[in-house]
Structure formats: C-alpha cells, structure tokens
C-alpha cells in the first residue's frame, strides 16, 4: 500500500486528507499522479489547476521517485508558515 496525504487548500478542494492505494500497479510518483488524476471525476481539474509540491517519505522532491510498499507520498500547496 502507498499512503497518500493531501494538505491545506488541496485537501479542501479534493475533500480528502488521506488515501491508501494498492501499490501493485504503481511503480513511481509519476504513475501515482496519473492514478490520482482519474481517482474521482473532478480530481484532474483540481490536481492540474496549479503546481502542487510533493514529498516522498516526508522529503520534498521535484523528481519522479520509485515507490515501494509502505511509502508515504504527500501533495500540498507552496508552504506559508513562519
């Protein structure tokens, strides 16, 4: 299983904070994103509406990362703390 997390505005727009996805057919974050685009009818609109940041196992990355069972992938807007 891949644990997928959404935060802040993205979480609100998708109406979802956390998902568990079967990892059998998902080799990397590129495939995960393609999977999420079709996950629900309106998700592609939200996911393509702006650039979201991505963290794999709690490290931000802009690369395509190979995924293994148990990995955690998070998507979120640019951060605004501090």
């Amino acid at each position, binding site marked *: 299983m891949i644990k997928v*997390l959404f*935060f*802040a*505005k993205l979480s*609100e727009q998708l109406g979802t904070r956390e998902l568990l996805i079967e990892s059998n057919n998902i080799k990397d974050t590129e495939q995960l994103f393609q999977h999420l685009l079709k996950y629900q009818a309106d998700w592609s609109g939200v996911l393509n509406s702006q650039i979201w940041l991505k*963290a794999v196992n*709690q*490290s*931000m990355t802009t690369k395509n990362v190979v995924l293994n069972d148990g990995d955690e992938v*998070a998507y*979120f*807007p*640019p*951060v*605004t*703390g*501090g």
Partner: protein
Amino acid sequence: MISVQKQDFNQQVEYNRLKSKTSIGAIVTFTGLVRDINQDQRVSDLTLEHYPGMTEKCLIDIVRQAKARWNIIESTVIHRIGALTLSEQIVFVGIASQHRGDAFAACEFIMDYLKTQAPFWKKETMESGETKWVDAREADQQALSKWNLENKC
C-alpha cells in the same frame, strides 16, 4: 530545542534557555506575529495547518544545516499550530553564539528556509468573515535564494 506546539511561548523563558553558557556573547531572537493586514486585506484570525512528522523533520534539518555553516552555541525553533488571533506569536527562532555575525546570519537563514520549505499553511479569516488560504510570497523565495542552498527538506 525544536518544538511544534499549540500553546503559546514566552520570550523571557526562551531567552533564558539560550543564555546558558559563559561563552555566549550574542543572542539574536526572531518572533513572528499575526499581523493585521496581509496581502492588502484586514485579517482577524488565522489557523495554521501542518504536516505532522515532516514539520519536525524539516526543522531539525534546517537547524542542522545552520550549525554546519555558523558557530551556534544554543538554538531554539518553536512553531505554533492551530487557531491564532491578531498579534499572537506564531514562530520563535533564537540563536546564541560567541559573535553577533553568526547569530544574525543563522537566525535569518532559519527563518528564510522555514518560510519556503517547512510544511505549514496559513488560512486567514478576514474582518469580513471570509476565509482564505494565504498565497506563498515570491519575496520569500527570493530571500531563500541568497543562501545558495544545495539540499532542501
């Protein structure tokens, strides 16, 4: 000391914690507060969301990078989460060093880094009652660029 917490913090307590050794000649503190106007709108409250686990990991990494660059004797980073009202304290960064140059640079570096890399998000409630997720500022990205970072959180 690194903390992500709901409760408020106290300037004197944090200052005293930093002022721990006789080798310290300089203490710089930064405190971020909820401001009344942001991006031209009057704010009354805000809520801070975060990514539990990653936030702490990211703050630890930021402090580690600061310690690799400057002489730091003591350091503190506190970031609050949850609901905050006008003028409330959001974030505290304190650095104690032998010399002021290190303390100033490390404190500003940590804030610039945190602002663009640590997974916190602000949602503002305006005086009108409307709520709005705060947009990231280009100025914060620019502030970070001056430090020539190789790895980010």
